[in-house]
């Protein structure tokens, strides 16, 4: 059975980075909505979700820096 390490090292670098970039674009746009509205329910949804997406993107970059570089 492939270990997580093996799985990660065999995943194409560009694909992971692309997913991370997409997540970060979505996260930034989601959180940027809070600049224009302070509706409590929107704050409750956009703030944690946007932050999570941005952090997932940053983690994708970290993964790329550690395992993705040849």
């Amino acid at each position: 059975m492939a270990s997580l390490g093996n799985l990660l090292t065999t995943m194409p670098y560009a694909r992971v980075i692309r997913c991370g970039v997409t997540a970060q674009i979505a996260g930034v746009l989601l959180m940027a909505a809070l600049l224009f509205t302070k509706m409590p329910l929107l704050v409750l949804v956009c703030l944690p979700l946007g932050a999570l997406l941005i952090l997932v993107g940053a983690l994708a970059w970290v993964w790329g820096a550690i395992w993705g570089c040849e």
Partner: protein
Amino acid sequence: MVFWALVIGAAVAVALLVILRLRIRSLATRSERALAFLAMGVVPCLWLLGMLGYTDHAMKKASFCVRCHEMQSYGESLLVDDDESLPAVHYRDGLVDRKKACYACHTRPGLGGIIEAKLKGLHDVKVHYFGEAPDTLTIHGEYPTSICLKCHREAASFQAGTMHQAMMDEILTGETSCLDCHDVAHELED
């Protein structure tokens, strides 16, 4: 100023990410990896920190609290010109930061108070959207004396009060609440 910095920050972050996405296939050179570091590691994370600070600041404002209709009459009660209404006097005389009047008088000092305020806020949002707010609103639990003492403890007028001096220990330990003697309830218009 902060608002525009964050708007520009968001635009820069998205622009860098879009450029990166278009060049992902050729991330072999040092400069392209530097772009990935900037676009994915630095700019979005710094912008995220800025946004967290900005939204935290915005959620402490009285204007945020009174967005829910249940709170509007309480917000209006701060504008009443009445020397008997302590919340209104605090607001009128600028004894608290007017922009954060609700937060200043409904949050205990310290990290525990901040976390508690967030959790109570979550509860209030839940009730507002998915529950039914009662006709008469009450605060969660007892009003903590530590909130008043944040400002009044060092105030000469508080320390000089004869009654305060007589029961200072009970006040400081929270055994006696400020509300036992002072009526701090909001005066709502019918």
